C-alpha cells in the first residue's frame, strides 16, 4: 500500500513537470493548440502534449465554463461525449463508442438489429459536433459494446483526429504483468473461437451458446470464418474490416493518436483533463495484482480476493480441447490425451467404433449399449465437458470487464463524475486498496475512495445496469450526494432479446433491484438509452444539470441526450 502511494506521488510530480513543459512549448509554438490532458507516467518519453483543436488564447486560468455529458441513445453500448467549454473553446473527450452485436436473425432480434443503424447515425452526428477533432479518447475496455462504433462506422471515423488516448494499464505493451494477462486472454479467445467454429459440435447446446454469446464481445463473429469470431486483425492498410476484433480497434486508436500520446493509467494516479488541464481525474481501477503475492497468501487466512480469474491451466485445457474438436483436427496428439495410445478407443456419436485415429482397442458392446440405451438418454454426458469452455469464456468475460478503466472525473469544485466502464465486483472492491492525492502537492493529504464517491453527482451506470457491475455497500450506497444523477446506456428491449434456453427472458438490464435503488438515490433523475424524453424532462426540473436532447432519430426518439453543468 505504501509503495503504491509513493508511485502516485511520483505521478503527480510528473504531471506538474509536464505542465511546465506545456507552457514553454506553447510560448514557442504559435500554432493554435489545445492542451490535452497530461498522461500517466507509463510513457515517460511523452513530450509536451500537442493537440490541434480549438483556439486557446483568451481562456481564463480559473476553471469556469460548462461541462456537458452527452449519451448517444438507442444503444445497448457505451457512447459518451464529454465536453468542457468556455466561450468558443472546448475540450472534447470521447468515452467509448460501441453497441451490442446482433447475432441471429432480424426477425428474432428486431430491436437489436437497429443498433448498427443507430450508431452510424450517432457517429455522423458526433463527427459534426466535435469537428472531427478530439482532445482525448478514453477506451475503457476491450469489449464490442464499447468499441464497435469504430468498426461499424469505420468510414465516418476515418478522418477523425485524436490528440490523446487513455487506456487501462492492462493494454500497455511494455508492461510485463499486462502482457502476461493479455497473452493468456488472447490464447483463450483463439481456442474458444476454434471450438465455437467446430462443425462437429452442436452449436445450439446451452454451453456452446454461452461461448458464442460471449465471443461476440471481442469482435465481429460474422462471417464465421477462420479470421472471424473475435480474432480478426486489422486490414493490411490499417483499416478495420467489418468483423474486426476489439483488439484491432484498440490498435487503430493507438495508431491514430501516435505512440507518444497514449497513456496507460494505473490505479491511484491522478491525471488532468479539461481546457488548460483545469480538472483532475482519479484513476480508480483496474486493479493491478501482483501474481506472486497472490500465490503466497496463506489460504487458511481468509480467501484471497481474485480479480482476474482465468488461470493458465484453464486456458491450456481449452486449447487442448480445441485441438481435439476444432475443425481440421488431425489424429489425436499424444499430449492432448490423458492416456497413452494403448488405451485409446475412439467412438462415434452412436457408440460405434471409429477405426481411424489410431484405435488400439475394441469397444465393449455391453457397456456401450448401456450408455446409448434410449430410455437412459438423459444420463448421457456427451457435451458436459463443454462446461470447461463455457467456464473459461465466463471467466474471461468477467476478467475483461474487470480491466475497465474506472475514472472519477473531478470538477474544479470537487464534484465528481463517475465513469466506471463495466467494472465488476473485484474492480470496485479494489478502489479502496489505495488512496488518492487530494491536491498536487507532494506528501499532501490523501483521499479515500469513500470521499470520492460521496462527491459523485453523476454516475454512468456500469455494464448497462446489470446485477453484478454496481457494488452495493462499497459502491452505490456511498454515493450520498443528493444531487446525484445517472445515465444508463441501455435498451431494455435489446437486452430481453438475448434469449437462450437457460434465460428465456434474455438479460435483465437494467436489473430490477439496482434500478429501484438508483431511482431512490437519484430522486428519479435517471437517463436511459431508451428513456422517454418527456418523462425524463419532468424528473430533471430540479436538477443542477441542464437537460437537452438532440434531433429526433425517429419521431419522439432523439439521437442523444445531454446533461450540462455550468461551473
Amino acid at each position, binding site marked *: 500500500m505504501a509503495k503504491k502511494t509513493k508511485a502516485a506521488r511520483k505521478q503527480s510530480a510528473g504531471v506538474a513537470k509536464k505542465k511546465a513543459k506545456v507552457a514553454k512549448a506553447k510560448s514557442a509554438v504559435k500554432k493554435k493548440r489545445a492542451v490535452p490532458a497530461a498522461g500517466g507516467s507509463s510513457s515517460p518519453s511523452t513530450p509536451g502534449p500537442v493537440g490541434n483543436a480549438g483556439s486557446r488564447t483568451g481562456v481564463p486560468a480559473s476553471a469556469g465554463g460548462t461541462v456537458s455529458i452527452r449519451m448517444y441513445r438507442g444503444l445497448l453500448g457505451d457512447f459518451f461525449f464529454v465536453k468542457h467549454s468556455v466561450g468558443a473553446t472546448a475540450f472534447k473527450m470521447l468515452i467509448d463508442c460501441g453497441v451490442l452485436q446482433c447475432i441471429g436473425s432480424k426477425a428474432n432480434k428486431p430491436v437489436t438489429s437497429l443498433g448498427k443503424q443507430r450508431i452510424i447515425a450517432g457517429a455522423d452526428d458526433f463527427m459534426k459536433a466535435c469537428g472531427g477533432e478530439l482532445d482525448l479518447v478514453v477506451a475503457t475496455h476491450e469489449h464490442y459494446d464499447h468499441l464497435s462504433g469504430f468498426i461499424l462506422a469505420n468510414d465516418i471515423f476515418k478522418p477523425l483526429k485524436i490528440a490523446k488516448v487513455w487506456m487501462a494499464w492492462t493494454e500497455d505493451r511494455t508492461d510485463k504483468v499486462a502482457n502476461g494477462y493479455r497473452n493468456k486472454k488472447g490464447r483463450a479467445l483463439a481456442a474458444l473461437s476454434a471450438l465455437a467454429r467446430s462443425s462437429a459440435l452442436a452449436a445450439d447446446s*446451452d454451453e456452446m451458446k454461452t461461448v458464442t454469446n460471449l465471443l461476440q464481445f471481442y469482435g465481429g463473429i460474422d462471417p464465421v470464418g477462420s479470421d472471424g469470431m473475435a480474432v480478426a486483425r486489422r486490414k493490411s492498410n490499417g483499416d478495420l474490416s467489418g468483423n474486426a476484433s476489439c483488439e484491432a480497434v484498440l490498435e487503430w486508436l493507438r495508431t491514430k493518436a501516435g505512440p507518444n500520446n497514449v497513456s496507460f493509467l494505473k490505479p491511484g494516479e491522478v491525471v488532468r483533463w479539461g481546457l488548460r488541464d483545469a480538472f483532475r481525474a482519479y484513476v480508480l481501477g483496474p486493479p493491478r495484482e501482483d501474481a506472486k503475492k497472490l500465490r503466497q497468501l496463506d489460504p487458511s487466512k481468509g480467501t484471497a480476493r481474485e480479480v482476474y480469474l482465468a488461470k493458465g491451466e484453464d486456458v491450456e485445457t481449452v486449447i487442448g480441447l480445441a485441438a481435439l474438436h476444432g475443425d481440421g483436427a488431425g489424429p489425436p496428439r499424444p499430449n492432448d490425451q490423458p492416456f497413452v495410445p494403448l488405451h485409446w478407443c475412439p467412438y462415434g456419436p452412436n457408440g460405434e467404433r471409429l477405426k481411424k485415429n489410431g484405435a488400439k482397442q475394441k469397444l465393449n458392446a455391453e457397456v456401450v449399449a448401456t*450408455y446409448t440405451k434410449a430410455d437412459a438418454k438423459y444420463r448421457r454426458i456427451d457435451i458436459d465437458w463443454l462446461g470447461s469452455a463455457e467456464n473459461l469464456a465466463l471467466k474471461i468475460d468477467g476478467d475483461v470487464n474487470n480491466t475497465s478503466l474506472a475514472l472519477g472525473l473531478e470538477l474544479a469544485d470537487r464534484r465528481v463524475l463517475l465513469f466506471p466502464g463495466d467494472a465488476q465486483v473485484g474492480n470496485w472492491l479494489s478502489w479502496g486498496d489505495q488512496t488518492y492525492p487530494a491536491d498536487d502537492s507532494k506528501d499532501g493529504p490523501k483521499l479515500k475512495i469513500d470521499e470520492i464517491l460521496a462527491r459523485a453527482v453523476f454516475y454512468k451506470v456500469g455494464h448497462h445496469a446489470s446485477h453484478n457491475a454496481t457494488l452495493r455497500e462499497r459502491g452505490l450506497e456511498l454515493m450520498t450526494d443528493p444531487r446525484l444523477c445517472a445515465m444508463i446506456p441501455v435498451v431494455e428491449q435489446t437486452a430481453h432479446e438475448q434469449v437462450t434456453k*437457460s434465460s428465456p427472458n434474455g438479460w435483465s438490464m437494467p436489473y430490477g433491484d439496482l434500478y429501484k435503488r438508483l431511482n431512490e438515490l437519484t430522486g428519479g433523475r435517471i437517463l436511459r438509452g431508451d428513456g422517454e424524453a418527456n418523462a425524463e424532462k419532468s424528473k430533471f426540473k430540479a436538477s443542477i444539470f441542464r437537460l437537452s436532447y438532440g434531433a429526433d432519430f425517429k419521431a419522439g426518439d432523439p439521437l442523444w441526450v445531454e446533461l450540462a453543468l455550468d461551473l
Partner: protein
Amino acid sequence: MESDYPAPSARRLRVYAFDPQTASTLGSIGYAYATISLPWEEPWEDRLEIGPINEYLEVIDVDPASGQFYRPVDLNHRHLLAQDGLTPSEGNPQFHQQMVFAVAMKVIRLFERALGRKVIWAPRWNDKSGRAGRYEPVRKLRVYPHALREANAYYSREKRALLFGYFRSAHASAGASWIFTALSHDIIAHETTHAVLDGLHRRYAEATSVDSLAFHEAFADIVALFSHFTLTEAVFTHIQNEGGALDRVGLLSGLAQQFAAGTSGHTSLRQYVGSEPDPDLLAKTTECHDRGAILVAAVFDAFLTIFGKRTEDLLRIGGVKRGENKRLDADLAARLTREAAKTADHVLRMCMRALDYMPPVDVRFGEFLRGIITADNDLVPVDTYNYRIAFAEAFRGRGIMVEDCLSMSPDNLLWESPEQMFGRNPLDVADIEEIGLDLRSYYARDEIIEVSEQNRYLVWDWLCRPHPTKVSVDRDWEKALGVYFMHRQRRLKSIDWGSGPKVEVHSVRATRRSGPDGQDVRQLVIEVAQRRRGYLDPEDQEKADRGDRVPKKPDFIFRGGATLIIDLRENRLRYVMRKRIDDEDRLQEQRELLASPDGFGFTYLPDEAGSRPREPFAMAHRGQ
C-alpha cells in the same frame, strides 16, 4: 462360473489410500496404498459385471472430451481375482474404474451399516411418464470417471450420476501433469455421499437457508474425512510421529491434497484442524463450502475430545504426554491407532444415524445436532464416554446454536416427544394396523423399492382421506405434521395446487439397528412434505395466501413438512421433527436468502430466475 465352492466373503480391491500424490512421496509411501474389502455379492443382488456394474453402480468410462470410450475392467477375471484387482496406476483408465467403484461401494456400505437399511437412489421425475409425470426409481447410480476435462467433480441430480473431471496440473507440487479426481479417495467419497444423501432427503438440495446446501457439503466432507481413520497404516504413522496427538495438520485431517496442489498450490482443499473454534465465525460465513467447513470442524472437535478421553489412560500407562515430540513405542501407537479408528467409526455412525432424525426440508445445523443426540440416545441409552456432551460442547464452541432449546445440554437437545409438543400423542396403535403397511424385511433392493412405493401410497392415501367420524383426528394430524391436507376453509390458499392442498409422502421406511449392548431398535420413518407458492414481494404473498389471483408465476417454492419416527416395538409415535408450512418467519428468511444470493449481498442479485440449474454439488463452482 457357478461352482460347488462356497463364495468368498469379500472382494478385495486395491486403491490409492489418498491420491497418487501420496504415492509419489517417499515419506508417505508406506501408507499410500490400501485394499478395500467389499462384501461378496449376495445371491439376491445383481452380479458384478464388466464395467464394473453391480447392484448399486454402473461405471461407464466414456470420455467425450477426448473422444474415447475406454475399455471397462473385468474384476471377475481370474488374474485380477488372484491379486486384489489391478495395481494402482495413474496411466491405466481401467484402474481408475476400479478405484471409483471400490471407494464408492465402501461409502455405500458405511451408510447401510449405520442406517440399518439399503441405500436407495433418489427417484427421477419423468414428466413424460403417465399423464402428469411421475417419479421413477433409479436402480443404479451412474459413475463417469472421466466425464469432464476440468478441475471439478460433481453429483448431477439431473443425470443421477457422478461426474469426475481430470485436468492438467498448474503446479509442480502436485507431482503429475494430469490430475484425476477419480483417483482421489476424498473426492469420490464426497460425491458419493452427496448421492446417498440426496436419496435419503431429496429436498435437502434446495437452497432454503444458508445452512441447507452447506449441510450437504459438510456431510460429504464428514464422510470423506472420517473414512481416513480406517486406513490403519496412515493413522499409525501419524500417531507414532506426533506423540499420540491427532490435532496436528496432516494428511488425515485435510481433504483432497492433490486436487488442491494441482489447482491452487495449497496443501489441501480443506483442512480441519488448526483453526481455533470461533463462536462468531458462523454468523459471518455464508459461502456454502465455507459454512459447511464450520460444521465439519465442530464434528472433528467432538472427535478429538472423545479420542482424548478414550486414550488418557493409555498415555498415562505409557508414561507419555500427548503431543510431545517423541516417537511413540510401536505397541502403544498400535493401541492408540485402534482407539482412533474406533472413535472415528463411532462418530461417523452417530452422524449418519442422525439423518433419520431430521426434518424433511430446510435443514439447519442445530437440527443436525439434535438429530445426533436423539438418535444416539435411542440406541445407546447410557453414554459411558460422554459422546453426547462432547458433541454439544463442540457445536457450541463453533457457534452452532439450537433454536428454541432450553440449554445446550444433551437432555435438552433431545427432540421433544409428541406428548411434550401437543400434550397428547395423535397416533393410535390401531392406526398403523389399519393402514396395512407391509413392514416385513426384504433383502433385494428391487423388492425394497417396490414395497416402499406401496407403503408410500398407503400412508399418503390414509393421510388425505378424511377421518370418517371425527374431524378432530385430522386436525390433530395437521397440527402434528405442520401441513394441511383437508379440503376445508383454510387461511392459507397458497398451498393449493389445482383442486386443493397437496401433500407428498417422501418415504416410508423401516429400519433395524443394533446398539453396542445388543439393543435392537426397530423404527418406521415417515417423511411428509408440502409446497407453497412463495413470492419475493410480501404483498404478492399475502394475495396468494388469501387465494386472490397473482398475475405472475411464484418466485420460489416454500416447503414445510415433518419426519415421524414410530417405534415399531410398541407402535408408538416417538418424535415429530417438523417445519410448519405456515411459518412466516422461515418464509421471510428464505426470501431474504434468495434476494442476496450466495449470501453475497455484494451486488444486486443472482442469476435470473429460471436459468439453467447449475450443478449445486460441484467441487468448484463454475464461473466464479
